[in-house]
């Protein structure tokens, strides 16, 4: 074991060739043995971050260590099982042969293939071609591939995509079990229930930046300022300019403000001084779902 953290990133940044900022100054720590939920709306930079942690993409700036080694190094990859985005396998090969290919490259005993196929309940379809699999079966084969090396660290990107409710529940149970076995799991998802039921700690990412991190309880306990004011756009701009304000979103005519609670008095002062009509000004305790929905709505508004 290398230190307290299985994964550490420091100011990790990814700028694509077209100039788009995929991940911006991201610093996070995933501790050994925890199930860490990486939560964020679609396109927020979750997959790009995971790809950098696996060495599939090179960071433009910043750095990361995974299991004490450089991302993508033989040393780290040998102890990581990963499924990134849609599972990608050779369509003409059977599920079993696809795992055989991966086992061959990873130097894993082929007897392990039967075990992982059983774990994901694919043993009876292991001889069928991958192209004949349903989306859910493809997803389960992806998880089987991730488990093949009996890894210390699992990086799973939206593993319940395409699964029916029963399959989702089974997958959550599996992830929970893997966590209980002492493995570290980094689980990326945009599904609140999945994260809440499975994860010990959560990091919320939006537009490539980590906007919240903590245990589920800590995140639930985050206070949020709720403001109703007119003109709303002027109020939003004024609030956003106050020091300590991390995030301002407009949801159904209400301004939701996240950040340092001490900024509330300054916000009130700025709004009154600017003659903004203030109808409501209160602090509310946001749930994890509230935080996520606020982020999602803002993405929609921005789009």
């Amino acid at each position, binding site marked *: 074991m290398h230190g307290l953290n299985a994964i550490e990133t420091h100011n990790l940044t990814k700028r694509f060739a077209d100039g788009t900022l995929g991940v911006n100054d991201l610093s996070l720590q995933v501790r050994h043995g925890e199930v860490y939920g990486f939560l964020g709306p679609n396109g927020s930079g979750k997959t790009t971050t995971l790809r950098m942690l696996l*060495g599939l*993409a090179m960071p433009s700036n910043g750095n990361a260590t995974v299991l004490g080694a450089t991302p993508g190094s033989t040393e780290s*990859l040998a102890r*990581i099982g990963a499924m990134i985005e849609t599972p990608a396998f*050779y369509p003409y090969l059977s599920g079993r042969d696809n795992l*055989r*290919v991966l086992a061959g*490259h*990873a130097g894993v005993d082929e007897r392990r293939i039967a075990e992982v196929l059983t774990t994901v309940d694919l043993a009876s379809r292991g001889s069928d071609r991958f192209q004949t699999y349903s989306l859910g079966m493809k997803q389960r084969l992806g998880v089987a591939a991730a488990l093949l090396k009996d890894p210390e660290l699992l990086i799973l990107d939206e593993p319940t995509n395409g699964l029916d409710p029963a399959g989702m529940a089974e997958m959550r149970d599996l992830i929970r079990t893997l966590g209980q076995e002492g493995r570290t799991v980094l689980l990326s998802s945009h599904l609140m229930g999945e994260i809440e039921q499975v994860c010990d700690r959560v990091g919320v990412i939006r537009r490539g930046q980590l906007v919240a991190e903590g245990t589920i309880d800590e995140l639930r306990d985050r206070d949020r300022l709720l403001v109703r004011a007119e003109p709303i756009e002027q109020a939003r701009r004024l609030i956003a300019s106050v020091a300590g304000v991390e995030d301002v979103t407009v949801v159904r005519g209400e301004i939701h403000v996240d950040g340092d609670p001490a900024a509330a008095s300054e916000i009130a002062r700025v709004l009154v001084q600017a003659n903004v009509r203030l109808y409501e000004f209160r602090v509310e305790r946001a749930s994890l779902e509230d935080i996520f929905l606020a982020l999602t709505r803002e993405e929609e508004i921005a789009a």
Partner: protein
Amino acid sequence: MTSSIRVELLVLRKRMATWILLGVWVILATIFAYIVPYMLNRSGATPQETELIRQLMPDRFAGNVSSGFPFYGGAFAIMLGVLAIGSDYTWGTLKTLFTQGPGRLRIFASKIIAIAITLIPFVLVPFIIGATSSAIVASLEGNAMSWPSIATIGQAILSSWVIMLAWAAFGVALAALTRGTSLAIGVGILYTLALEGLLSALAGSVNLLEPLVKIFVRTNAYSLIEPLGAMNAGSAGDGPGRFTGPFVSTTQALIMLGVYVVVFVGISAVALRRRDVG
């Protein structure tokens, strides 16, 4: 490494496209090296026709079969190279492979070795069918069966494999650079047909082109098999595979083809190692 090569061979062996390429190549090689020349010249009405029938006899089969590799065989080798690497981009399997741990370059090396091994039947089967066809022609013409030496046959087989390897490496490089299959196959075929083919044809009349043509894959490939007597039948007719020179020495040809393999594989390795995988 052995297990990586073994599974990469499984990937190629179980792929229908590999067998289709092999089947079509063998059929084309047989048609253009034996069936068409025999049908067109079997009357032996002119000395030229008689000579062309002579090329189809067992004693010249090694050269006759190998004459198909620099161009026609090369096109199939390009496609094999493109499919072996480009499909990993198209299907996204590269990211699955690259998270397994052995390192990008080791996985790539195992793929290259698997391609090189897969090319062996692409060389051997046409030679076996060529030998059989030449025996049939000799029987039909009532000629005695006289075979080239084992050394000549071995040289022809090895030369043909080197040629196929150079073209396959070209296909691999195109696939790695374009990160896919369609464009890579298009560019590969266009290069062999339009660029090398047309400029080689013009080299006879435009002297300035000769030094350039001498470094072409096709020139070095034809030069490698030229001592086997390959240039008299398969490549002398009209068509995209036609080649009448300039030739370089066998040694230079072998070195140049080796350099091409190293350069194409090197370019691909750099592209695979450095670039992000989607």
